[in-house]
């Protein structure tokens, strides 16, 4: 019975840890399985200033506290594990890790999302050599230099502004003729004299030797491709849902996000979803936590039927 649980939570980010806290506190035998380090996208956030009740914290600190909180209620957490198979279609849900099979009456999928890559020539080669995905980590390497920020959402525009503390110039390259960011973020970026914009364009490839020297920029409307010399490129083009393992188990939308009702119930009985892997508009720690709590409460109701 050691590997038999009431609920298994797949994923240990904000949504998964919240579900773990609610379930364990309700004396529901719970296991969280996480393929990487617990914390998910949260630990990739250097500074969190909009988490209600805490003026300023780091993603690492917040996730460490959430993990401790879940464990204090008796939640089992296994991180850095590789899930090899999942069977959620029957009453007894099965999740296999290596040679070990875990079973549960209900499962909450909280596998989150991952940063999108551009997927163009040279991106892997020059990662850390002129290509970065973290302004707070690597911004100071570009002091006095000319850089590009790719993207048009809140992250892209906020990080572009933040990078002007170091860079001589920041060029925002965005594929559409308008931004997806909030008006405030757009206004702040547009008001910054160091920032310029290249709209309706994408990066077509990265080129250099030891590090990036130039990129090819493609104008989507005219198909014109031209070379731009640059010292560095920061990429902030959103997230993709980590849902590949579930496409045969639950219904996904066209973006690969798991569909659910207001109770976080998926198309499969006894399977719930929470956090960034779910179909939704706003992806924040606050919304992930909300999902996790709702999924947990409804999972409890389900197993008590």
């Amino acid at each position: 019975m050691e590997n038999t649980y009431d609920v298994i939570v797949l994923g240990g980010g904000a949504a998964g840890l919240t579900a773990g806290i609610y379930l364990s506190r309700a004396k529901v035998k719970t296991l969280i399985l996480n393929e990487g380090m617990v914390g998910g996208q949260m630990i990739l956030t250097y500074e969190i200033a909009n988490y209600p009740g805490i003026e300023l914290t780091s993603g690492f600190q917040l996730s460490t506290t959430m993990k401790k909180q879940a464990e204090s209620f008796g939640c089992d957490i296994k991180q850095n594990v590789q899930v090899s198979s999942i069977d959620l279609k029957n009453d007894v849900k099965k999740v296999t890790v290596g040679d070990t099979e875990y079973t549960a009456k209900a499962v909450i999928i909280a596998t989150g999302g991952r940063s999108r890559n551009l997927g163009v020539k040279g991106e892997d080669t020059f990662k850390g050599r002129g290509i970065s995905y973290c302004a707070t980590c690597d911004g100071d390497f570009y002091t006095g230099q000319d850089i590009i920020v790719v993207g048009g959402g809140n992250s892209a525009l906020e990080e572009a502004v933040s990078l002007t503390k170091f860079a001589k110039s920041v060029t925002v390259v965005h594929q559409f003729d308008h931004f997806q960011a909030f008006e405030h973020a757009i206004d702040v970026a547009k008001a910054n004299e160091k920032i310029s914009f290249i709209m309706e364009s994408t990066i077509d490839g990265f080129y250099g030797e030891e590090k990036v020297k130039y990129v090819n920029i493609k104008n989507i409307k005219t198909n014109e491709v031209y070379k731009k010399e640059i010292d560095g490129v920061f990429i902030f083009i959103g997230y993709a849902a980590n849902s590949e393992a579930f496409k045969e188990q639950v219904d996904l939308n066209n973006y690969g996000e798991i569909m659910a009702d207001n109770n976080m119930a998926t198309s499969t009985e006894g399977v719930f979803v929470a956090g960034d892997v779910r179909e939704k508009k706003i992806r924040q720690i606050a919304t992930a936590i909300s999902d996790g709590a709702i999924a947990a409460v409804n999972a409890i109701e389900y197993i008590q039927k």
Partner: protein
Amino acid sequence: MLMTNLEHVETAAQHKEIIENNENVMICAGRMGPMCIPVYAAMEELREEYPNIKFLDMEFDAPEAHVIRNAPECAGFMGLPFTMYYKNGKVAKATTSIQMKDQIKAILDEYLA
């Protein structure tokens, strides 16, 4: 000092002594930032699996971390952390930016086996 459970390298002299007196050494030079923390976590977990390798970290901004920041193998590096793999006192491999546990294992198996 970095808030990890790894042993810390604090001086250039200590760095020299460690790589000279241990056959296999991995040192991650970073900050407590989002690209560095997952590497420290992976190292902490790999310690048991690779008892023949010494796993340490070093604060990237410490003045004496110049032994890593300015190493020729790190020329062109512009992403934290800078991670060094030493075999018999010599640099066997150096990487820049975040590496996942599987990527680190592949390097350990190839260069510090």
